């Protein structure tokens, strides 16, 4: 089965606005769900630059941008991908 790629933005803005610790979202997943996930730290995605601080931290799940990412939101989105 294909892995679900979760890119976490490691840019300073995302990190400061709540991105640190986002990788913990895997703790909300079951062991089976967890092995489907691949976490990739990403350099700044560049979306914060248009002055939208409120929208950071960003993540990307299989290429789809997730603004205002939280551990819960990421876990939910990953589950949706698994179906």
């Amino acid at each position, binding site marked *: 089965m294909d892995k679900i790629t979760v890119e976490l933005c*490691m840019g*300073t803005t995302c*990190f400061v606005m709540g991105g*640190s*610790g986002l990788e913990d979202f895997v703790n909300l997943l079951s062991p089976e769900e967890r092995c489907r996930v691949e976490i990739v730290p990403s*350099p*700044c995605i560049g979306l914060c*630059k248009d002055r939208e*601080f409120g929208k950071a931290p960003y993540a990307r799940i299989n290429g789809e941008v997730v603004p205002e990412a939280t551990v819960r939101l990421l876990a939910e989105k990953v589950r949706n991908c698994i179906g």
Partner: protein
Amino acid sequence: MQCQNNATKIKREILIRLIELFNKGELETKTRNIPFQMIPKEQESMRCCIYKDRAIIRLRSIAALGWAAESDTDDSKLLNDYAREALEREALEGPVMTVLDLACKGCVNNRYFITDVCQGCLARPCMFNCPKDAITVVNGRSIIDPDKCIDCGKCQTVCPYNAVTKVSVPCEQACPVGAISKNKTGKATIDFDKCTSCGRCMRSCPFGAVMEKSQVIDVARALKKECEVVAMLAPAIVGQFPGSLEQIAAGLVKLGFDRVVEVAQGADVTTVKEAEEFIERMAKGEPFMTTSCCPAYVQSVKKHITDLLPYVSETRTPMHYTAAAEKERNKDCVTVFVGPCVAKRQEGFDDDCVDYVLTFEELGTFFVANNIEIEQLDGIVFDSQPSREGRGFAITGGVAGAVEAYAPDDAGIKSVSINGLSAKALKKLQMYAEGKLKDANLIEVMTCEGGCVAGAGAMATPVSASREVKKICEASCSISKK
């Protein structure tokens, strides 16, 4: 409460905006727009209406500019005026913490409450076990008479349906020394004769109603001046930002700091002096000694457990030794401590060698406002390498561990760590002072559970932060000569 939440995000956004305005030279003219930009007309209000939201953003901005929210008695005073005064002031003054009365929800008093889950059972263990006869059954449901209840919590432990819940005031609950309480109007106020500036109320308030007075503007001003500005990085900094310690240091240089040093250097001085002081005190026949690096703990002793005062080591903190060394090298340099701690700002006010104190959170907002991507920078090389133990001061057990590693084996150290200063821990310390507890002769006290990595001004989770601190410790050389 987790450090990542909406209240901290709002605070960080304000700091970022202020630094950006400062950089553009528009602080005096455009600060007043911040509440309107952050809470635009079309936005759904978080409280009763956007006007209250804006009024609270205004108060947050006042604190972020370094002023006490309590001092804002004139609503019509513009943020621009506060900004101008911040640009003109000589120095910031204590106390560090400030309460935003408008943001305070005025939570209901701490009390036990019986919820709908109550089944009105036949056994009624709540009623039978209540020592004060405070519980009666009305319409098939138990209710507590608040006048009789003494908050013992018995009913909660005996209820088979878990129907009893405790409603708490988070700030009061979090404060280990009873310094924050509700005033006549039900809003929180801090008694600064009791407050140790640990910052727990700030971290715990779900409405973000407690803030620290920030020094970001003062530091931004210092960076613009001609003088040499030195950043002193607390050992807890690794893991607080993406990138290595060397890259973080490079980020500071990009911000305009002329020199970056590790406070772990000063920690090594503390270790040596602390070990010497320990041996000296034991030779004099003293029963024990406690560490003194944690400023909130030292404040707690001064204000709440004075019996312990003679046993607190007189060795100064790593921040002091680091700053003193910098001032000796260049007496005109400006020293900026960068750490996870709010209480350090108070310590900085009282220490002539320390000019400013920034938290990691505030440093993060500097990075964002100046578009600095830490991960993309080439790391700088530090002049010297502090020891493994000095870098380990950031984690509970680190300070005592360093003294043990340095002191000779025959020093007879038996150490214990007080990991997190709670009301219970204060009682335990009192017992040491009275000679009722004798299981150790070196007591390390950390106000924050987990150590400095869990400080109120930290950004990363304590777990991930300690992981990174441990990694860098393992890669460093030991101070031990054994």
